[in-house]
């Protein structure tokens, strides 16, 4: 089932800056859809348009079947947004944040208390309920912000760089939580700068560059389309080597086997480096980086 559909979307700001141009894609229910791109590529603009916070100037976008421009009020009760660099009110507890967000979104005090307990339990925040937000770690603060977005049990969740500034454990905890949410049927669109994050989470991927679609497909397709494959690093024999090690890109299992056999025969250390999305990303947007550098 299609949850988000975008057709030729464009956004030109009043000053004439083109933030988006001709972007099209769709997202199915239960997917994690990752938006990648450099700073200023148009990721946040696209997310804000889909979250009904910004009006497009060209094309159309539909969320849960409703046009973001014609019918935003029909969309809003079913979505939630975690903005970039959102932070909790440091002088309040996690419990206060979530309880009040429940009540602001229309729940009675009793229902709000129950929902607060459930959301806090689900996200591992209950034991921290009475601490001040200022005393929470970065990961817990981010979880709190996500919990505030989840109070309305949204069908579609928009997250703008949700793990920025978190340590590796904090990031993993957020990833785990997002996977759990999709298992329960939520659809997630997230923007990120972290390519390992996209590699871990993305069911589908859109790379935008200067407001235009630079790539759309899966992580594996991104690697395949750009010819980024596994690399094998063959070092010189100990005490007998000069210069950099050999870096090979085998195309078949036979080639891999041959490299391993040669390494064993010549007593050379062989290291396998899987293809990474980062390399594919650099190949995809690399052209524009070179243009800017000259």
């Amino acid at each position, binding site marked *: 089932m299609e949850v988000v559909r975008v057709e030729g979307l464009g956004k030109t700001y009043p000053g004439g800056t083109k933030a988006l141009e001709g972007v099209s894609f769709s997202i199915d229910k239960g997917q994690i859809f990752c938006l990648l791109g450099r700073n200023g590529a148009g990721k946040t603009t696209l997310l*804000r348009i889909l*979250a*009904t*916070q910004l009006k497009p100037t060209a094309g159309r976008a539909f969320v849960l079947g409703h046009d973001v421009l014609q019918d935003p009020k029909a969309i*809003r*009760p079913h*979505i*939630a*947004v*975690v*903005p*970039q*660099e*959102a*932070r*909790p*009110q440091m*002088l*309040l507890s996690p419990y*206060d944040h979530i309880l*009040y*967000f429940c*009540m*602001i*979104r*229309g729940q009675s005090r009793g229902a709000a208390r129950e929902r607060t307990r459930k959301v806090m339990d689900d996200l591992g925040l209950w034991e921290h309920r009475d601490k001040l937000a200022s005393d929470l770690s970065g990961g817990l603060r981010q979880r709190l912000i996500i919990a*505030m*977005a989840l109070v*309305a049990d949204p069908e579609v969740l*928009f997250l703008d760089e949700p793990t920025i500034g978190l340590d590796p454990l904090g990031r993993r905890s957020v990833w785990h939580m997002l996977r759990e949410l999709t298992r329960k049927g939520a659809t997630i669109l997230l923007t990120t700068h972290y390519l390992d994050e996209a590699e871990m989470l993305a069911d589908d991927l859109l790379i935008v560059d200067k407001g235009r679609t630079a790539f759309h497909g899966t992580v594996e397709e991104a690697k395949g389309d750009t010819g980024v494959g596994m690399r094998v690093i063959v070092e010189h024999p100990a005490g007998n080597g000069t210069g950099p090690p050999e870096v090979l890109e085998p195309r078949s299992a036979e080639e891999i086997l041959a490299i391993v056999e040669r390494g064993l025969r010549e007593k050379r250390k062989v290291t396998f480096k899987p293809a990474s999305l980062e390399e594919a990303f650099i190949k995809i947007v690399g052209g524009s980086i070179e243009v800017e550098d000259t």
Partner: protein
Amino acid sequence: MKSRIREALYIGLFDALPLLRDPMLLVVISLFSFLPVIFIFVFATAPGAAVQSLVGAIILTFAFTGLFASQSVYFNKQWFRFQDMLVASRVSPASYAVGLSVSGLVVALPGVLVALVLVLLSAPVPAIGVLVALATALLLWIGLVFVGFAIGATTKNARRANSIPQVLSIALGFLPPVYYPLSTLDRYPVAQAFAMLIPTTHAAQLAKYYFGLIDIPVWQVALGWAYLLGFT
């Protein structure tokens, strides 16, 4: 409509919650505009000066509450980013704006009530007088809420979000004849003319008049209302 009022109320309470949870800070904030009254009470020799300044302080509490909505607007938009979270939900933009506007009133109300009791003990006036005086304060509040929203929505940096309302509070509150009578400026006609351009002057004049503390000509009463309505 009921659900919209509820949304606004909870947004206001949530915004005011850090202060409501910290009684010491609440006392300091709610007494902010009443501090000059203590000095006037101790040092002023003119009869009734302290009560007039107390009325001025009530007026200014409403004025500052409206003006400092700018900080709520700025911080919810640029710092916490709760605005983005709430706009992309069933919460109406109007509820959000009303909620942020009333949050300051929630905090200021205890101080206003104490001051009102003190004024009424010093100068008993009929209920209608109190209501009309509070209406002038409310009009001023509404006008300055708009000013506060304009500042908060257009400011891009936290330093300015804090400093602009502080500077304006001096220009609107401590310089014009709010704590002291307008007649004090009789010797300085230019300053008096300038004072008449400031909305807090008119609100304070009207409130003092309705509390029976000063007598002003009818044209000045009419001018005061016209100015406040126009300003709002």
